[in-house]
């Protein structure tokens, strides 16, 4: 029964005594306000010259206590809060909550709703990957990809905004259906966009992937072997880069993913290059999915239950997980029959992808740490919730 509670100062303190300090090692604080920390993630690095000896991620700089708020908020309102966690796959987050509630109340949704949901999930995935590609270029030092990534994402955002009404926090998929039916010119604009984005992805490859500096900076950097990836609980592109073909769209086949032909992209070594290359390939897969779906959207109502009906889940535990752009998002609900959940927990993909960096980044340089963090594609509000 050996329980030793520690505090951060003790950790930082005994880091000093554990190894007698050579004049070389020193502490540095890659603080909450750092350009490449994708938000407010803080690393305390123990450096020797430029090589990282030890890395301690410190979180909590954007911890708003969403799970505590979730306990005093009705199920329909909790869908709003999931937008504010991982704002790059906000529609997919809404889908996770609505799917949990629909499974609990075994509420049936028709084909039209499922295809619209799948189309918007794939649109959200493309949006998140183009944004990631721009920020990846910026982290490696090239400023122009940032603008190209945003430019392509902006076209898609205007299409989505026309239907969902908002650009970033969509709150579009509700338990029992979709908030608004798709607009008339949605299909035309999406087809135009697919024709527009395909040559763009080739342009991305020419600008970044074929660049020898990028290849040198990402090959064999931050290798995550298969066993380590599994034991570190990483999911999504990070896990698939290490060679594990785990993609809930294929295994769980919710929505209309079973009716659509797409391949799960798997890497071999699990280094930063694989994680980079997989996301570019996933963008192409998402485009194929949308292309197959967009022509034959079945007719039907876009909302099965009226939006204002109150939702009460019977007593017990409910859990469902979904594949977002960054990994598996699991919603766990413990309900005691009341209108708001007794306990609601989000299994955030970013939180579990983050911790493999403590093992990967040791022995590498600061610029490698920046590359790894940006290939892990972390969203810090989703880490802290």
């Amino acid at each position: 029964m050996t329980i030793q509670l520690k505090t951060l100062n003790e950790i930082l303190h005994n880091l000093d005594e554990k190894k007698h300090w050579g004049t070389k090692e020193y502490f540095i604080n890659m603080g909450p306000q750092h350009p490449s920390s994708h938000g407010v993630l803080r690393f305390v690095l123990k450096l020797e010259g430029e090589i990282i000896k030890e890395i301690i991620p410190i979180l909590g700089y954007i911890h708003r206590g969403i799970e505590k708020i979730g306990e005093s908020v009705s199920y329909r309102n909790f869908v709003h809060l999931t937008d504010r966690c991982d704002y790059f796959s906000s529609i997919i987050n809404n889908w996770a909550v609505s799917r949990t509630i629909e499974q609990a109340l075994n509420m049936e949704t028709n084909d039209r709703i499922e295809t619209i949901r799948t189309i918007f999930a794939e649109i959200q995935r493309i949006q998140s990957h183009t944004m990631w590609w721009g920020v990846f270029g910026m982290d490696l030092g090239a400023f122009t990809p940032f603008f190209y990534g945003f430019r392509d994402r902006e076209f898609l955002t205007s299409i989505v905004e026309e239907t969902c009404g908002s650009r970033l926090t969509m709150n579009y998929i509700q338990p029992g259906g979709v908030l608004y039916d798709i607009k008339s010119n949605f299909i035309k604009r999406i087809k135009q966009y697919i024709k527009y984005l395909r040559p763009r992805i080739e342009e991305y490859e020419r600008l970044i992937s074929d660049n020898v500096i990028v290849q040198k900076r990402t090959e064999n950097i931050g290798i995550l072997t298969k066993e380590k990836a599994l034991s570190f609980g990483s999911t999504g592109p990070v896990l698939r880069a290490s060679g594990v073909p785990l993609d809930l769209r294929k295994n769980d086949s919710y929505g209309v993913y079973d009716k659509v032909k797409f391949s799960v992209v798997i890497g071999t070594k699990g280094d930063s290059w694989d994680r980079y290359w997989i996301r570019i390939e996933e963008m192409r897969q998402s485009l194929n999915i949308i292309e197959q779906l967009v022509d034959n959207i079945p007719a039907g109502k876009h909302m099965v239950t009226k939006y204002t009906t109150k939702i009460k889940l019977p007593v017990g535990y409910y859990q469902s997980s979904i594949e977002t752009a960054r990994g598996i998002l699991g919603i766990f609900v413990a309900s005691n029959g009341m209108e708001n959940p007794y306990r609601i927990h989000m299994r955030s993909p970013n939180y579990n992808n983050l911790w493999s960096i403590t093992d990967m980044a040791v022995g590498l340089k600061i610029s490698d740490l920046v590359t790894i963090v940006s290939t892990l594609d972390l969203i810090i509000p989703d880490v802290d919730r």
Partner: protein
Amino acid sequence: MIISILKDAIYLKYGDFVLEKSEISLVKEVIIKQSKFLEFMQLVKDDKDLKFDILLDHTAVDYINENVFHLVYHLYSSIYNHQVIILVEVPRDKPVISTLCSIWRIAEWQEREVFDLFGILYNNHPDLRRIFLEDDWVGFPLRKNYKDNFMLEK
């Protein structure tokens, strides 16, 4: 595998670990005795036809009127693509359970999150400290009886 078959398989193979069978809810959870918890987890991971190699999620639920914590472990097998939820009951006044760091590395930080928000202690956990809140934070926010004058109650 369909949920019920998986639960029966676990009951059959590890009957003495299971505390009581729960049929009430849809989810595939199995309640385990607190004493043989670590041993059960190791067995479940290495079992050749279960092979739960990913600890997807770990959280806790605070039942204040039954004066008990339910610890929830969500396991997933990347080979057979099936998943199960393991529950452990821990008394509210002495919430101590053994850590799973030796089996899955991610458990170290998931347990730190649950310690930070619920106050559940894990013995021989390598680095048990708060992860989201300041170290000098008083109280554990997600407990039902958590009082905080900073918080606006709706």
